[in-house]
């Protein structure tokens, strides 16, 4: 047994071409990013709508949104995706069959993005709700006083004014999304976590592949942080320095 642990590591396993797994890991990372961007965008849209519905909607809207955020945030994503993807397509197919149509096949990718978007939307709703509450009410009142429609006031005043308050929470959500893509393994989608497990399980080099995946995730985070910092610097213009 070699004394030097470094010599035990078979770096060849990370080579880009088979039998090395490097290429597979990178492809997994790209898939993860794709799904994350799709799901997160959907989540932002749902979250913005949800936050406004919760704050300014009628009593029915409010209750429905409260159920949405509570249920979706409460139920583990795995359960949601199994229910939506399998039970959902099952029901759809039965419906289609009884109406005389052929079977429909929802792609795992679409279902995955949808589920992640719906889940992110619930969290984003809460983050944005808090951020809007943090905007001094006078700012929004002033927008109204100048005859802005709710949508215009949202776009021109409320959203930019709440952004500094919302950004930390939203950037957390983004980082969580990039890792939540692991869920799509359940529907047979190869993203970074699944291929890491496959590589580790096939080669037994657990430490190596988990750390490699960690480095990839970390790189993604660092790039994200850079972008977030740019957005934050822009959003906080006009805030007196502390």
């Amino acid at each position: 047994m070699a004394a030097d642990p470094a010599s035990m590591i078979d770096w060849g396993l990370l080579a880009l071409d088979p039998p090395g797994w490097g290429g597979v890991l990178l492809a997994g990372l790209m898939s993860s990013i794709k799904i994350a961007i799709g799901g997160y965008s959907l989540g932002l849209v749902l979250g913005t709508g949800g936050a406004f519905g919760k704050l300014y909607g009628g009593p029915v809207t409010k209750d429905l949104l409260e159920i949405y955020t509570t249920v979706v945030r409460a139920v583990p994503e795995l359960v949601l995706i199994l229910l939506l993807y399998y039970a959902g397509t099952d029901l759809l197919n039965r419906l289609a069959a009884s109406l005389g149509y052929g079977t429909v096949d929802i792609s795992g990718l679409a279902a995955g993005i949808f589920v992640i978007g719906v889940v992110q939307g619930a969290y984003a709703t809460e983050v944005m709700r808090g951020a809007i509450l943090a905007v001094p009410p006078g700012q929004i009142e002033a927008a109204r006083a100048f005859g802005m429609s709710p949508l215009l006031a949202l776009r021109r005043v409320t959203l930019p004014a709440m952004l500094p308050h919302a950004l930390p929470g939203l950037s957390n959500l983004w980082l969580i999304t990039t890792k939540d893509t692991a869920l799509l393994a359940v529907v047979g989608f190869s993203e970074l976590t699944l291929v890491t497990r496959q590589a580790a399980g096939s080669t037994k080099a657990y430490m190596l592949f988990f750390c490699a995946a960690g480095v990839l995730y970390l790189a993604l985070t660092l790039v994200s942080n850079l972008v977030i910092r740019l957005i934050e610097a822009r959003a906080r213009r006009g805030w007196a320095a502390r």
Partner: protein
Amino acid sequence: MSAGEKAAEPDSLVELPPEESTVEATALTRLPSGRGFLKPHRVVLMAIAASIVFCAVWFLRWDWLPDYAGRLAHGVGVTLLMLFGTCLLGFVLAVPIGLVQVTGPWPLKLLAKGFCTIIRGTPLLLQLWLLYYGLGSLFPQFPAIRQSFLWPVLREAWPYGVAALTMSFAAYEGEVMRGAFAGVPKGELEAARAYGMSRWKVFRRIWLPRAVHRALPTLNGETVLQLKSTPLVATITVIDVYAVVSKIRQVTYLTYEPLLLLALIYLCLTALLVLAFRYFENKIPTRSA
């Protein structure tokens, strides 16, 4: 899913009918009162929920439930213990992590920033795994540790689970607290300093409560996320409710029933968390436009 309705949010302050929104009443919470709670549309929603529950009970297989009731209860206990333990510890760490990023000297700022980046940037599973199988399996190599009084603890799995979950919560929450600290109006801190409060007192009496209050909605979300992160400890042999349900699934090969039960349990736990947070949030009324 009936717990969802129970958690349904009562009307927010701005929407209260006039007779309920006196200045005095705003000091009360917005939690549902019996009269406000049972509005017509709520009754409809509850009826829908009841019928869903009925369908679930009627058309699915639940004969396995009695066999696992005890283990499930134990699992819920482990989940709750993990959740509260790590959230409390994590929050205690998150406050200084958020604070030094706003005002601290640059070495501390850098340290906190780095910690947050690394923890938030890598999957929790990997951290857990590195701690338990990496660090944890180094300990037995040292006879000194093996003989020491610490060994019975280090030999267990839960300390590693607690450590990993705590760090994760601290990192995510530290980021939230950073935003919250930065968002407290400068004038209010100045007023506190102008009255001769020491830095610590300004922090404890004004800055922290104000920041926590405005961070509560996000904090609530992070806590629910933490609840859903706890199942990862099953990979290091800590059996929480999620692990019990996975086991039921593997033993019976049932698809949906155990998952629905799991969803219900998580719903109840989340509903409790949401209600608790909403209560604290509403202790201080905010005027929103």
